């Protein structure tokens, strides 16, 4: 995914539902806590491979986690 201004995500909610810390989620994804924080706060849009990893981890489709505003909130 390219860096965009309007890409929102439900990462923080999904992570909270599983009671995972940012560091824990980062460990499961193979990225740093800072990367998870940047994605959650919308400062960084993950690459497509990382987005797929997230989708598999949460057992959801990518568009259920990320919303670019084109089709409304997922």
């Amino acid at each position: 995914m390219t860096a965009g201004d309007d890409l929102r995500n439900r990462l923080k909610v999904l992570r909270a539902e599983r009671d995972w810390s940012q560091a824990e989620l980062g460990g499961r994804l193979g990225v740093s806590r800072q990367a998870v924080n940047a994605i959650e706060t919308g400062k960084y849009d993950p690459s497509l491979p990382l987005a797929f990893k997230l989708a598999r981890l949460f057992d959801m489709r990518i568009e259920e986690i990320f919303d670019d505003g084109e089709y409304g909130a997922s």
Partner: protein
Amino acid sequence: MLFFRSAASHAGVGPSVTTLRVLTAVSLAAYPAGCLTMTLAPDGRGALFLYEAVGLALITLALITAAPVLGSRLQRIVGDEAKRLDEYELHLRHRAISAAYASFTGLTCLAVLYAALASDFGWWTPRGYDAFNAIFWGVFLYSSLLPTAFLAWKLEEGDLAHSEASA
């Protein structure tokens, strides 16, 4: 780019982002200030000594303030091996190096413009080993610290904290 990875801290040591802003700004300002002070020293033994002492002090200050930056978390993003960084850190590195490249190009253009004008107007131009040695280490310092300085001014403390509690 340089990054000093100590045995104790592979992720880089942690001066705060604010501290890194101050350190990089002081280092990048003090080095050219010191060189200029020494270059512009007037004739006369007393004045020459004073200018050279102040110039050396400023250059020393630039090196002292650069030293802790070279092992910092931000310098790791800029200077560590790419395989040790995750995709977010690589993204930050790309932005930092792009911004530093633009700044460095601008400074180089200004230097060339100055050199062109200096020959016409009889201004100071670098001659000899001392002048070019100072320019070489200045270029080295700027190429090492400009990307880190960009990151220090772009990021906030929470962006780099190792735990959510401190973010």
